[in-house]
């Protein structure tokens, strides 16, 4: 008889400006693999972080084996039989694989009254686990020398060292090779047969049908449905994930698409990107789809001159241009808006106006380089009004804005440069539903002004809703291209997943 080993009730968690989890519920039985499904930003990862003690829920209860629990840290959770494999690695870069796997729960042997680390035992256990995972990793290697996939395997190995009853996998296959994925599924099946409960977070529906027993769909931080995998199909899940009224979300403006303004031919960087060809027309929104690590961000950053050498031809308005650094791109009207607002996009401890003018400070200064703050406030005020950024004034610190409003500042900052081509990398990541719609509205408004836009997004519905054309990337090259009208989620996914 399968008993419930993990139960979440009415979990609420909010972050500054965002309600991430809204009365979510979830349950896990022993010996089952229960998938959590949802769009990016639906709250899957946040939910699991609440479970394992990274975040404290604002409201709600967590029951492990029927006992209410509240873990203080992932280690605390591990010790109580709940282990998690994080999506983004939480590994210590300068430390070895072995040290990382056993950090905080090292195997100790007692010798002459001293508690010593038992490297032999740890090594043995780690080797066993990696053998089970069918991977080879040098246990003495520093984490910083490993690739993403290897890091992911280390995370998995770390979780497996705990004899946990509940194991949470947060998009574990995002950067794994097929062989590694197969090995992982074997492990999951084995764990399942041992009677453990597994939470499997993924947006790859194929995988869910391959190994999961039940699937819970959440959307915008809310519980939508729980179904038996055997009784459902892809369409049903997709419908649950995407939800109602797609048209409201994606107010695509009808624009006349003009002539070609930007073209990239036979573009390579030193190793990863291979033979990239694409073009963008005036007033067009071109989407770039693909899985994590497929090279979309790398391509755009390389074109904009952020990352080292590259080979290939880049044309702007029919003229071949060379971009050595981002200034070259910026001055020609090619502007990039980073996916990571906090790290690359904005200086959160500066005010809205200061952020907007940063890339072109010289334009807001007199010939003595003295900044004209009134001019700054003026332009910032313009965007504040136009994009309805919710801030009391333009001197408001960006850090105090919600994600959506921060993103609007990011876009304002780019637009202030009067670009001809705007590259938006994940423009709606970490933004709540309403702000998403507003940002989409802004984007389509821009095309009406004859701006061309490249949009990278991991949310297919967003691309489907907004784009005139979608390129699909895979392993550093372009694997396909669809026009509006011919693209569907299935077509794109089949190429991206392949």
């Amino acid at each position, binding site marked *: 008889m399968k008993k419930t080993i993990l139960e979440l009730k009415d979990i609420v968690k909010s972050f500054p400006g965002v309600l991430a989890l809204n009365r979510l519920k979830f349950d896990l039985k022993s010996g089952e693999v229960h998938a959590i499904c949802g769009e990016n930003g639906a709250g899957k990862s946040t939910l699991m972080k609440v479970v394992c003690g990274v975040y404290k829920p604002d409201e709600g209860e967590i029951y492990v084996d029927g006992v209410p629990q509240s873990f203080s840290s992932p280690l605390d959770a591990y010790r109580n039989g709940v282990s998690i494999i994080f999506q983004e690695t939480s590994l210590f870069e300068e430390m070895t694989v072995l040290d990382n796997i056993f950090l905080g729960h090292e195997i100790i042997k007692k010798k002459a009254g001293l508690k010593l680390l038992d490297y032999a035992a740890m090594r043995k256990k780690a080797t066993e686990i990696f053998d089970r995972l069918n991977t080879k990793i040098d246990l003495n290697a520093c984490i910083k020398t490993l690739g993403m996939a290897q890091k992911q395997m280390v995370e998995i190995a770390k979780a497996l060292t705990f004899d946990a009853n509940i194991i949470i996998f947060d998009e574990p296959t995002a950067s794994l090779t097929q062989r590694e994925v197969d090995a992982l599924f074997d492990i999951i099946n084995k764990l399942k047969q041992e009677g453990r409960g597994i939470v499997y977070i993924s947006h790859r529906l194929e995988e869910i049908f391959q190994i999961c027993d039940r699937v819970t769909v959440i959307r915008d931080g809310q519980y939508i449905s729980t179904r038996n995998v055997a009784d459902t199909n892809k369409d049903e899940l997709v419908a649950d994930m995407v939800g109602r009224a797609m048209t409201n979300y994606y107010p695509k403006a009808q624009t006349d698409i003009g002539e070609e303004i930007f073209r990239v031919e036979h573009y390579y960087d030193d190793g990863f990107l291979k033979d990239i060809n694409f073009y963008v027309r005036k007033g067009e929104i071109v989407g770039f789809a693909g899985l994590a690590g497929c090279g979309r961000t790398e391509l755009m950053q390389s074109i904009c001159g952020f990352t080292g050498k590259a080979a290939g031809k880049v044309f702007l308005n029919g003229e071949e241009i060379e971009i050595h650094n981002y200034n070259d791109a910026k001055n020609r009207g090619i502007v990039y808006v980073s996916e990571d607002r906090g790290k690359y996009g904005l200086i959160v401890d500066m005010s809205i106006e200061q952020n907007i003018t940063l890339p072109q400070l010289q334009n807001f200064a007199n010939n003595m380089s003295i900044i004209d703050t009134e001019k700054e406030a003026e332009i910032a005020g313009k965007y504040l009004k136009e994009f309805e950024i919710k801030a*009391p004034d333009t001197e408001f610190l960006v850090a105090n804005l919600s994600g959506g409003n921060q993103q609007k500042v990011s876009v304002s900052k780019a637009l202030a440069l009067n670009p001809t081509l705007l590259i938006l990398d994940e423009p709606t990541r970490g933004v709540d539903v309403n702000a998403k719609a507003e940002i989409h509205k802004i984007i389509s408004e821009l095309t009406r002004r004859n701006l061309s836009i490249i949009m990278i997004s991991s949310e297919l519905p967003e691309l489907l809703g907004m784009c005139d054309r979608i390129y699909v990337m895979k392993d550093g090259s372009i694997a396909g291209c669809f026009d509006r009208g011919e693209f569907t989620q299935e077509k794109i996914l089949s190429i991206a997943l392949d």
Partner: protein
Amino acid sequence: MANKKKFKVTFNMLLFLIWILIFIGIAATSPVFLSPSYLLNVMLRNIIEIGMVALPMTLIIIMGGIDLSVGNIMILAATLGGLAAVTYGSAVAVIVTILTGLVCGLINGLVIVKAKISPMVTTLATMYLYLGISRGISKGSSIYSFDFATTMGTTSLFGIPVQVWIYVLLVVIFTVLLAKTTLGRKLYSIGLNENATQYAGIDVGKIKIAMYIICGLICALASFIWLGRFTSIKFDAGTNFNMKVITIVVLGGTSINGGIGSMIGTIIGTLIIATLNSGLTVMNIPIDVQTIVHGSVLIVALIAYAVVNSRAKKKKLIKIEAAPKQVASM
């Protein structure tokens, strides 16, 4: 929005208050202190070199760097300049001194930017290097002043020592530079988020190198004044100079992590240290007690800074309420 009008206690005001308290305290106990000639010719004159170097140091610390080698650049510049003066005369000495400052700063900047070594490690190494070179070249003996340096160190203009004028001029330039110009803004943004600054198309490396060069140049300028004031200089004269400069900058509320700080703070910091230095001396307080007072003032300032900062950091969060319970659990 109403509280925007409300009077806000800034750190600089607090710092200013601390200074006034110290100043009044000392002036009350020792009237000699208040004489204009003492304030000008002693209190200010004695802090000028340190205060001067603290200005570019503020810029460097604001952009998230540090320079532990300033005192040694100053001594090296004076040493080479002084030696050049012996054989080639004052004019050459001036050029040599300035070039030394420039090259030393350039080396610091290049190593930090191109080899991507942390500023602390780099300037710690160059500290030894510059100290060692000046010691080796001077063979450990004193280097004597030359015409230009003597002029810089000893003359007065309208009854005020010329170095005070220079300092005031630099104060104005650096204050405007940091608070008003594009460069100042860029420095803050580098200190707050170097990646994002780079992604805004700003050449962070170039700015960093430029700052270390400016710092080197100001050190060279300070070396004239120092040399002129004392008529001779020795390789170890920079003992504690580096730490004193950093103390002043930190005392002025500049965060050692970069991104936060102001020139005004540094200037008040300079005044506090100057007042303590000269004031406590005039009160015949032994050096050891003075050191304790210096340390305590620094600690008080650091704590005051933490208090003000935590108030400023208090974010106005937009709270979003969760859906009512019954709706979700349907």
